[in-house]
């Protein structure tokens, strides 16, 4: 007899195994999602690093491209509004009923799961980005005041991406496959928000479009601030456009929500 009683190795091992697998089933699901989201910027990190070689492209050298894309991976993860995907399901399945019955606006339900999700995803992305930073030696030279401005821009970028996605997701009140539009939005972000290439390096026609559409202000804009690619005047215009698009997204989300809710109760009632 040991002080612990007869050691049941088989039972203990089975418990460890089952705990580990049940942990793996759920946590790993979120980690896999985060892995999938961080890969496109990672691919373009390698492509642009290879393109820069030992020289410079568009004013950036290899280390600066690494810095740009590692920050972009973090900003992309922070601003990615993953809850927009579940809003449609909640509306279609009728789960919205229980949200509406609670004595608080349904927006809180979405925001709380958004926040909880962020913590889980960042628990995966931050260590991976840190490991890549050690491996690939980024170079970042932020302009004075660039970091606080970039943090402000990131918060606004999250709000813009969240509410812009929300009004699209709320179209689920009318169309059963509104999710497809969210996939289109992801594709637009991929093309125009600085993932395929930093926006200043896009072909001229795309660059002009990207500067005015909301997508750059969801991801690329804060990254460009912190990597020092923008003049103060460009930063000011950028903030103005970002806030204007955010206001538009808020109004749209509110309108669509009101109209959708009327339709929803009409069906249910």
């Amino acid at each position: 007899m040991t002080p612990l009683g007869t050691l049941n190795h088989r039972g203990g091992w089975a418990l460890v195994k089952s705990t580990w697998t049940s942990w793996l089933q759920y946590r790993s699901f979120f980690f896999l999602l985060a892995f999938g989201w961080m890969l496109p910027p990672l691919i373009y990190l390698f492509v642009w690093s290879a393109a820069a070689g030992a020289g410079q492209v568009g004013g950036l050298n290899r280390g600066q491209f690494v810095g740009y894309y590692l920050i972009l991976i973090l900003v992309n993860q922070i601003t990615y509004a993953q809850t927009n995907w579940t809003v449609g399901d909640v509306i279609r399945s009728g789960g919205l009923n229980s949200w509406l019955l609670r004595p608080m606006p349904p927006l809180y339900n979405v925001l709380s799961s958004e926040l909880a999700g962020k913590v889980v995803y960042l628990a995966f992305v931050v260590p991976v980005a840190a490991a890549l930073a050690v491996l690939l030696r980024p170079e970042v030279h932020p302009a004075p005041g660039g970091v606080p401005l970039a943090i402000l821009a990131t918060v606004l970028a999250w709000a813009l991406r969240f509410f812009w996605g929300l009004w699209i997701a709320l179209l689920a009140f009318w169309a059963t496959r509104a999710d497809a539009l969210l996939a289109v939005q992801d594709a637009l972000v991929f093309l125009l928000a600085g993932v395929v290439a930093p926006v200043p390096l896009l072909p001229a026609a795309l660059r002009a479009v990207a500067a005015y559409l909301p997508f750059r202000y969801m991801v690329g804009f804060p990254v460009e601030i912190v990597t020092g690619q923008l003049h103060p005047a460009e930063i000011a215009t950028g903030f103005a456009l970002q806030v204007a698009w955010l206001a538009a997204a808020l109004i749209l989300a509110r309108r669509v929500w009101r109209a959708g809710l009327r339709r929803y109760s009409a069906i249910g009632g």
Partner: protein
Amino acid sequence: MAASAQGDLAYRANFAISLLHSLLNLGAGVAGVLALPWSQVSAINGWDRRGLLALLGVYLVVSALRGLGLGPSLDALAGMDGEVWSGRLDFTLLRPVNTQFLASFRQWRLFTLTDLALGLGVIGAALAQPGEALTAGRLLAFVVALAAGMAILYAALLACAALTFWSPGFMFTWLFDGIFQMARYPVGIYPGWLRLALTWIVPVGLMTTVPAQALTGDLAPGLLIASTGLAFGLVLAASVFFRVALRQYASASS
């Protein structure tokens, strides 16, 4: 197959949105090649603009061929609501056709035919750029390399599906999808350690880089033979693995 087509056609608006999505992805892929500094350099790690465009076309073709039948069929096995978890695989097992064949080609998504056309269009546009002309020999090498690449892709997906029987909730194919995205660009563009991993550990390089090289004429004959041989070996190994995995399956009742 006809049933899958009818299921798809029920959503006409969805088709328009899917097409828009495909076009945007295509635009992003092309922009990712054209935005590179071609005015400063003529080639990046040995790949010129024509080669990169051809590779993008091959990537789109391979993704479309996968999405046509193989992807949706094998994906249906995995996940929290997948057929292995819920026991719905019983319906597949009970049919008097080879299980592996049925599990691999049950569901068809004909929308992806448009993706296939877009991919072939990109290959055509790449070859129309000034450069060495396409010969019959190269076309033959390309077809062989593409078939080998698809076979290797099939083996990888089948192995992912087999792993599902041990851990039904884990999306092994998602993990593979993430890595497969790297096949958009030639393995030669990545740093050495990653290049080795993408050639030998998860051979996505063989799925797109080798066929694209066959098309532009940069392919060593030895690599084509090695790729074909590896394809046969991997499909065989994955089939055996899938059969072993099927024995793990405990049906719906247990």
